[in-house]
């Protein structure tokens, strides 16, 4: 260091206060003038902050004739010499569990995984992986923590809520509503507050504004997603009130953008909502709910859609009456689909069309599940794990013990079920799709 002057291709080295180590990788032609070589510049800070490595390539200029020492050019063997951007590339490919472990390796790695560049990179990667599931046990005791389920590896990790007693007590009684980008939205079934956005991995939470009055409702359903047009997260909720005469007041819809001070009421959707809605499914820029019309004459089953950007409702109808009234609404293979449960048959309908021309439901295929499902033994489709298999959650009513839940993989082509033996799975649970990330719930 200091033996010769050089002009680096990046900006000058600042802050000579920082300790600097320069290693030279010298080309074998480097004798005398005109050698081309690469310097790795590693700045070390005693506090472990702002450490970094950059590579410069430059031509050696020296006015004096100098013989370069001819060490064979390699850095001290075995040192970790990958620059931070590359380390980000590597760590962002790890499952979240291992990223957290890597924080214990050294301060530089910890600092790196806390930075916005890394958080965004990891989020973009996780969006292309199979989602995991976050479960919350229905049992009071187990409800203290969230369970991260990896269906591929068949293992569960218990993620405790943050230690502060007030938070964990509240979170204990709440239900998982939905998730987006690694953020969970949790709220109560029968109260419209609190509604909390939480990242279970970083344990950061952000409560949404609540009305002053404590309002009890009959049902409460929330959809939460990033609005691609504005880059902000929006939360849409539906709840049903009973008025003082115990009459059903019908559904109310409200929306809030994360960071706003209060919820906004939405005007009523184009069709009457007869019953409480089920969970919202986000697809193609809109939230969707299935609408069950049981005492209808027209016989059209339909899906209620709500566009997140322009905040308008629309409906998707099928012109065929379904055989049964039990069906799942979810995204299969990139398409919004309805899976109809007709005793032993599983009929799949897919939404086709475009926003401009209109959507409609069309029949896709039927599978024979070879099981006579009934009100004591029923299932719901969680996702399609491959071209020829589905992940199902099976529920069996156990009389006094309540229900028993578990997961199976269903292979329709082979009429085969494969029970997922997951140690630590609670006997009763509810879950949502989840893609773990380090995104902060706090609005920017």
């Amino acid at each position, binding site marked *: 260091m200091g033996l010769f002057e050089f002009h680096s291709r990046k900006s000058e080295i600042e802050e000579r206060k920082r300790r600097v180590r320069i290693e030279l990788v010298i080309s074998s032609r480097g004798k005398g003038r005109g050698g*081309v070589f690469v310097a790795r510049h590693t700045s070390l800070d005693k506090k472990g902050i702002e450490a970094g490595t950059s590579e410069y390539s430059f031509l050696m200029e020296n006015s004096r004739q100098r013989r370069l020492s001819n060490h064979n050019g*390699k850095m001290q*063997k075995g040192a970790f010499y990958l620059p931070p951007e590359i380390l980000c590339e590597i760590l962002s490919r790890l499952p979240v569990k291992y990223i957290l472990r890597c924080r214990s390796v050294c*301060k530089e790695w910890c600092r790196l995984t806390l930075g916005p560049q890394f958080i965004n990179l990891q989020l973009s990667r996780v969006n292309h*992986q199979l989602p995991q599931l976050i479960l919350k046990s229905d049992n009071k005791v187990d409800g203290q923590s969230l369970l991260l389920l990896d269906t591929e590896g068949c293992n569960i990790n218990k993620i405790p809520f943050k230690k502060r007693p007030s938070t964990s007590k509240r979170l204990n009684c709440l239900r998982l509503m939905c998730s987006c980008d690694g953020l969970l939205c949790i709220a109560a079934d029968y109260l419209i507050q609190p509604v909390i956005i939480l990242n279970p991995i970083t344990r950061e939470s952000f409560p949404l504004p609540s009305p002053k009055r404590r309002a009890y409702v009959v049902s409460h359903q929330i959809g939460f997603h990033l609005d691609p047009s504005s880059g902000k997260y929006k939360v849409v909720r539906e709840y049903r009130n009973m008025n003082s005469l115990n009459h059903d007041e019908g559904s109310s819809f409200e929306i809030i953008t994360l960071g706003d001070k209060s919820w906004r009421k939405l005007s009523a959707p184009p069709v009457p909502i007869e019953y409480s809605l089920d969970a919202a499914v986000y697809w193609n820029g809109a939230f969707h709910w299935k609408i069950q019309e049981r005492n209808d004459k027209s016989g059209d089953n339909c899906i209620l859609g709500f566009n997140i950007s322009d905040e308008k409702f629309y409906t998707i109808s099928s012109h065929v009456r379904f055989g049964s009234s039990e069906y799942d609404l979810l995204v299969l293979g990139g398409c919004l689909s309805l899976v109809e449960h007709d005793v032993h048959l599983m009929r799949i309908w897919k939404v086709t069309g475009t926003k401009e021309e209109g959507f409609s439901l069309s029949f896709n295929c039927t599978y024979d599940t070879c099981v006579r499902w009934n009100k004591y033994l029923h299932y719901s489709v969680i996702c399609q794990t491959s071209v020829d298999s589905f992940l199902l959650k099976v529920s069996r009513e156990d009389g006094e013990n309540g229900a028993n839940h578990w997961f199976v993989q269903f292979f329709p082509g082979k009429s085969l079920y494969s029970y997922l033996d997951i140690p630590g799975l609670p006997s009763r649970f509810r879950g949502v799709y989840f893609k773990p990330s380090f995104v902060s719930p706090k609005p920017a």
Partner: protein
Amino acid sequence: MASSSTSVVVSNKEKENKNTKKVTLKSSDGESFEVDESVAMESQTIKHIIEDGCANNEIPLPNVTSGILSRVIEYCKKHKEAAGESEPSVTSYTSNSTTNPLTEWDTEFVKVDQNTLFDLILAANYLDIKGLLDLTCKTVADMMKGKTPQEIRETFHIKNDYTPEEEAEVRKENQWAFE
């Protein structure tokens, strides 16, 4: 027999001269590698140099040694060939794969010592070859999976700059990840 073999040789040569444009890549230690332009353009960096007209048919790569450059060229050649033959990949449901017919070849390709692997990563980054960067980064990530922090430090020669108290605190915060 002899006459037919001669004619085969001649026609091959003709083919070569007709179709393929070549570029020469020069490693940091002065070795020159002549490759098809199409293979070299697997590297976005080289592609831009050629398109900007700065090539002059010899492109110096001062950041890449000959040992690494020859491997990179091997990778590009293999992947260019395969891309020419196969159909565009179909999106699948499972996590990683767009079905890659070269998975086995790639796995063998990255069975190298750690320094070579890191140099390949740096070369792939400098030369902007997405596939190679993905492959090598994933390989290193897989090496980290399942290891304890101490094992990671040992494998990758990283100095632990935490005090025992600091380390205990970081670990406690993420305790569930260790179970």
